[in-house]
């Protein structure tokens, strides 16, 4: 009899196993458990508001903000302003902060940066919690075991008003990362490999675990988490380790958190193993990221007009370091523009101190202020019809960086830097 009861109890427990994402959603919803197929109303721990919310009535202003201490505001997509309209957008953001007593405000000063970069660097991404922002690459904060999601402008209005939003609980695909990337390779190459092998992941969460994670810097993990927007993942969550927790504690000492780990008996839609040692430099051909990459070694040898490194995915110090290493003592090819945009002003300053900016500029690069800039075709490197660009940013969509008649190839920072030197798509291993 006792045996039977305990057996039943075990079966009950088996059904209760949750993935990391499910656990974070359950906590945010105040529920014991959630299961794929549920829709849950959740409390948002951190609401990230950006300059884009303040134009064209995109985000309507709530009468009252639910909790000013849980709201962070960042001017990023086009900062400093490039036009009276964008200047008014920034002004509206400042007025919003003043009116509602929001103190975490990243204005056009030394705290400036791309929102997802700042969320990482200021410890706003808190392990085990839920973060929301209008922007699609919000999943970036998943590198910190934070369930983070882009939710669009109207929903941000609702979040600012109520502190709540909803999510479908989706099935989860687990990626077990093994081994280590070979030198010059980047998390960008990992995502292109995943996007090639497995296509889009719409209505699925992805989770990253495995020994391979411990070999990746937080920057590198964040590049991978950020790029999960490109496979249409719902949430992208990394398992936390000491490096991750120390990063958050150091930057946000007052915050208390509890990282969430998948139960041993969690139910996954699929578990996939990725051997990082086998990954080679890849380049996604124009217009889509998914199922569209080939080895850089086999890429067409056409002239490249612009090479860009930047964005929330590849504007980190790691990216500056590798770009500087690739171009050191060399010159950018005739007829190629090489543009590098840091993820934040703090990264910019540190890249200057470490000599990366000097190396890049000596090679012929234009190093710009931190902003989204060329990534979304707003500023600092817009493409003309017929031009070809290789970019270490997030997207290669038609028309994204300027003219719809331009072609955009997407690759890692090392590949972009090598391409800037040769003026045609180049495997960085050929240069070093």
């Amino acid at each position: 009899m006792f045996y039977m009861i305990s057996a039943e109890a075990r079966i009950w427990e088996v059904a209760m196993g949750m993935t990391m994402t499910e656990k974070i959603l359950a906590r945010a919803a105040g529920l014991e458990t959630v299961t794929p197929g549920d829709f849950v109303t959740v409390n948002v721990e951190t609401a990230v508001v950006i300059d884009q919310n303040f134009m064209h009535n995109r985000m309507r202003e709530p009468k009252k903000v639910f909790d000013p201490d849980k709201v962070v505001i960042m001017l990023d997509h086009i900062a400093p302003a490039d036009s009276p309209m964008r200047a008014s957008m920034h002004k509206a953001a400042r007025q919003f902060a003043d009116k509602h007593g929001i103190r975490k405000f990243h204005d056009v000063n030394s705290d400036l940066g791309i929102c997802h970069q700042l969320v990482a660097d200021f410890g706003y991404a808190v392990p085990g919690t839920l973060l929301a922002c209008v922007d699609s690459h919000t999943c970036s904060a998943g590198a910190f075991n934070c369930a983070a999601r882009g939710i669009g402008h109207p929903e941000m209005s609702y979040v600012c008003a109520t502190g709540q939003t909803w999510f479908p609980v989706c099935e989860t695909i687990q990626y077990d990362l093994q081994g280590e990337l070979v030198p010059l390779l980047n998390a960008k190459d990992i995502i292109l490999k995943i996007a090639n092998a497995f296509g889009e992941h719409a209505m699925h969460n992805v989770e990253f675990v495995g020994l391979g994670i411990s070999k990746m810097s937080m920057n590198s993990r964040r590049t991978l988490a950020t790029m999960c927007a490109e496979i249409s993942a719902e949430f992208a969550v990394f398992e936390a380790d000491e490096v991750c927790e120390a990063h958050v504690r150091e930057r946000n000492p007052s915050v208390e958190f509890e990282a969430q780990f998948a139960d041993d008996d969690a139910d996954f839609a699929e578990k996939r193993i990725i051997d990082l040692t086998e990954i080679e430099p890849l380049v996604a051909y124009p217009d889509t990221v998914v199922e569209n990459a080939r080895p850089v070694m086999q890429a067409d040898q056409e002239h490249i007009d612009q090479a860009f490194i930047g964005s929330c995915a590849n504007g980190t110090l790691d990216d500056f370091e590798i770009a500087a290493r690739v171009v050191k003592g060399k010159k950018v090819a005739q007829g190629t523009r090489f543009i590098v945009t840091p993820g934040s002003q703090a990264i910019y300053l540190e890249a200057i101190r470490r000599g990366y900016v000097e190396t890049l500029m000596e090679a012929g690069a234009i190093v710009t202020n931190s902003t989204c800039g060329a990534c979304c075709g707003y500023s600092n490197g817009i493409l003309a019809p017929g031009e070809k660009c290789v970019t270490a940013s997030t997207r290669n969509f038609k028309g994204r960086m300027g003219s719809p008649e331009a072609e955009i190839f997407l690759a890692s920072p090392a590949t972009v830097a090598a391409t800037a030197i040769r003026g045609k798509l180049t495997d960085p291993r050929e240069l070093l």
Partner: protein
Amino acid sequence: MSITGKSWKFGDHINTDLILPGPVMLLPFDEQPKFAFQANRPGWAEKVSDGDVIVGGHNFGTGSGRPAARSLRELGVTCIVAESINGLFFRNCANYGVFALECPGISDFIEEGDEIEVEFGQFTVRNKRTGEVLQGKRFPNVIRDVMEAGGIYPMMEKQGLLEDPNPLTA
């Protein structure tokens, strides 16, 4: 609740940069919708009319969280049915009052121009030309209610949550 309309077919991985290109976002809000699909289907925005529906492939609406669904609504699109829909785009559809339904098999089920009836009680799609019915993926009534209300702003207005008019915008 059902929606009937003439269908426009699109392929896989239709992204929001195609619907609302970055440079277009500099223009006044009212002028932005007419640039939808200018890069991949020039002239479409002039042909689409009130009450039409879009039938998409896999991963429809992937990309940026920009108000692309709002552009389609302004052009008269009332409903989007696709093999699969990006989660953020689906949410934006609901919040801008555009009905959206994931419906595996829809690409082969519909030819461009077919009149279809999308039913949001059973979550089915009926091809009026062939008379056949295809089952879509269900979602909770609360989300359907948001779509039916014309999006989240009308709901928030009713609840007295919003400043009206919006004081802080460029």
